């Protein structure tokens, strides 16, 4: 089977010019991910789990190594690809779920959720219908759909965020603690949606504070703790 993602010797550090120093986040990370596979990233705080996800999404620039992604257009190295190609892949094939919602002023919850579909060319009515469906699924009350999420509680914002991030099936989904600040019902809805996407072939790499939430989905665990970077098949792992 062709890997969706083939990460080779990926290294990331930050140069902090005002301190005149460098900080290593992770070094020489290599692993592959197949379609429909769920990989959990493990490691202590500061091991570089979120940094790795952001480097894969190209919010961070890796210093060396390759991120070979099997896109619909052939294989492309996400570490080196042109910005417009990355922007295109983000609209079509690669999704990222964070714990933070970047809400814009004066934009309603349903419009925020519908936006990825609108950008992909879906008409306004259809996009809004789907947006409302997902807001409902994640437990956002209908009276909030037309309100501005900037005023919502952390948990409600997170639900809007999830609805937006998961509204379109993607080839690769990066999950940065999506269950943080969710209530039990929303967590269950999230796990159901992820399971659906997974069975539809979406490859996932996730960081979870409480991996128990997604225990049934995990195929493999990768430990990013320096010096002990190991890859473990799911059966051998105790979460």
């Amino acid at each position, binding site marked *: 089977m062709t890997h969706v993602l083939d990460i080779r010797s990926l290294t990331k550090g930050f140069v*902090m010019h005002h301190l005149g120093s460098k900080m290593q986040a992770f070094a020489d990370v290599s692993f592959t991910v197949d379609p429909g596979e769920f990989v959990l990233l493990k490691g202590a705080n500061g091991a570089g789990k979120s940094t790795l996800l952001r480097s894969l999404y190209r*919010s*961070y620039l890796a210093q060396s190594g390759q991120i070979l992604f099997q*896109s619909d257009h052939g294989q492309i190295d996400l570490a080196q690809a*042109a910005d*417009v190609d990355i*922007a295109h*892949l983000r609209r079509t094939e690669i999704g990222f779920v964070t714990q933070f919602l970047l809400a814009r002023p004066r*934009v309603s919850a349903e419009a925020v959720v519908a936006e990825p579909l609108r950008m992909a060319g879906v008409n306004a009515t259809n996009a809004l219908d789907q947006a409302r469906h997902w807001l409902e699924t994640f437990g956002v009350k209908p009276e909030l759909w037309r309100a501005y999420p900037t005023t919502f509680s952390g948990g409600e914002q997170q639900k809007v965020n999830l609805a937006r991030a998961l509204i379109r099936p993607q080839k690769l989904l990066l999950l940065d603690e999506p269950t943080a600040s969710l209530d039990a019902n929303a967590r269950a809805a999230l796990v159901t949606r992820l399971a659906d996407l997974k069975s539809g072939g979406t490859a996932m790499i996730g960081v979870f504070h409480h991996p128990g939430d997604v225990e049934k989905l995990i195929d493999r665990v990768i430990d990013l703790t320096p010096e002990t970077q190991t890859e473990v098949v799911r059966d051998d792992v105790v979460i």
Partner: protein
Amino acid sequence: MTRVMDAPRIVTTKPLVVVRNVDKNYGSVQALRQVSALVYPGEVLGIVGESGSGKSTLLRMMNLEETPDSGTYTLDLPDVSGNLFELDRFARRMLCATRIGIVYQNPHHGLLMRHSSSGNVAERLLVAGERNFATLRAKAKSALAASEFPLERLDAPPIELSGGMQQRVQLAKAIALEPALLLLDEPTTGLDVSVQALVLDTLKRLQQERRITMVIVSHDLGVIRTVADRVMVMRRGEVVEAGLVDQIFQDPQHAYTQQLVHAKL
């Protein structure tokens, strides 16, 4: 480090805007040094930098108001070809009047302050050859509506309007002809935050619904973060860094960009 000129492999559409190796000196001051920029169709390019970094000069070049000492500028549009900096004055005016829209920081630069708001918008349609009064009025009205201008003030001259409404008239004028390229020079500077949000919201909607390609210059990083897809950071006439908007804000590489991003409130 800068990926501005990187050739894409997946995106096969040609860039709409190609600016290459532009130099501009004002006396002994180097305003632009070997500046290059690409903008793809439907994309919003943000340009940030301190005062005097050359960002507005670059935008005025894209509006063909200034000619550089050297460099080229092309637009990938039907019946537009060659280096646009070499066009004569008449050809430049026609191109700008029909294909490029601009919103200036100061509405006095973009509007006739004592003519009616609808007349300001209609003027642009007139330049493009529209002569039917009813059509002029209808098109002006629809452009003003798209810019969220209160239609009961259609005939009020901009001088009687608030700063936010003046900017919406400028925006309506700029989009009345569905320009291929929309240039925005500090469009929200000096507006209060609620009006600022309205203008940004309108821009974002125009981008989604009409896929207008935009270049926005602002020293307000919040504005750029909200509307831009890619960002170019300029300092002393040079591009020091360029990248996707989240990368520039989350993982700035250049010392100057780090300083800029960390200084944001």
